[in-house]
């Protein structure tokens, strides 16, 4: 199955800008479905970015993060061709991870 994580990591030699879009419902647990039953909370709690064996960014998310969540950040000390490992875990124990090459 194609990964749920889309990522664009581009470096201008010194700073690497990372944009990520993740396919996930991010249900808050407060919304009712068509039959009027509450859709249980199902949201990503932790999203980690690691490069060259070091965490470069860690996101802790609550229920207020939009569906198909997006996040952008930048970091130093990486160069073109380095591997960026992205992994997330949600409140139901679901998870996914992928590795992207910095362009």
């Amino acid at each position, binding site marked *: 199955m194609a990964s749920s994580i889309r990522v664009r990591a581009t470096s201008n030699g010194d700073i690497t800008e990372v944009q990520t*879009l993740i396919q996930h419902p991010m249900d808050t647990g407060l919304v009712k479905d068509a039959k009027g039953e509450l859709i249980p909370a199902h949201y990503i709690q932790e999203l980690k970015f690691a490069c060259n064996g070091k965490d470069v960014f860690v996101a802790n998310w609550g229920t207020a993060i939009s569906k*198909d969540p997006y996040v*952008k950040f930048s970091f130093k000390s990486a160069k073109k061709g380095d591997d960026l490992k992205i992994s997330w875990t949600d409140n139901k124990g679901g998870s996914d991870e992928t590795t992207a090459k910095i362009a």
Partner: protein
Amino acid sequence: MMKARTALLLGSLSAALVAFALTSPRVVAADKVDPVADAKAFQNFFFQKFPNVKHEDFVNGPYSMNEDMKRQWQEKEEFPPYEFALDAGKEMFATPFKNGKTYADCFPNGGIGIRQNYPYFDTGEGKVVTLELALNRCREANGEAPYSYVKDEMASLTAYMAFTSRGKAMDIRIPDDRRALEAFENGKRYFYTRRGQMNFSCASCHVQSPGERIRAEVLAPALGILNALPIYRSEWSGMGTTSRRFITCNSQTRAVPLEPQADEYRDVEYFLSYVANGLPISGPGARP
């Protein structure tokens, strides 16, 4: 004194004549369907009503009308929410049917970069064929079940086909065929006809008050309103095909929607696409 008065008289007379001349050809022409004149008048209406909106910007709907929303949209466009539908559409396009054929076999140029010519008038059948109808026909011709017109699969396919045409000018043709002119006129009538308990027509919102708010939404101008379809709407937190957009608009004016791909829907799509000829395809789009 006399001369001044007669000059005044002559002036007003000629003005009246000019005014009469201007309207009369249109009045006469209205009975004979004249799509070229309709398209010109339609575009000029919006170009004059919003002089500082760049012509090609009209296809960006509400974002051509409101700076703050345009900024939010451009931020979203950096990594748009329709990215998944686009990838799914690309994959579906490449996956062969059970009989080994693919969508590329059903469409000119393999289906790539042709969205700007849809809908077209099929002189054989004597009716308007939209991209969504053509896709389902291709599926059925290859022994596959048709997709729902309002669900994600259809949206993913049309998203990919629209993406391959991005930037190309809308290029809808009306053949010299009485039935084509009738379909165009039928679409125009549908566009201007009030319906639903709210007693709105498409024009009530998209011609009379684009740029204004109806509740929280900024209304899109009718010119180029279909160029961005299919769209990912935050409201639906999902993709929306042209059919889904028409159906939801109907129910919001409390009119019972017609069946997807009904004559009226295909004809109004034909009318709206034709009058937007020359404006770029910008689908798939992201909307509030």
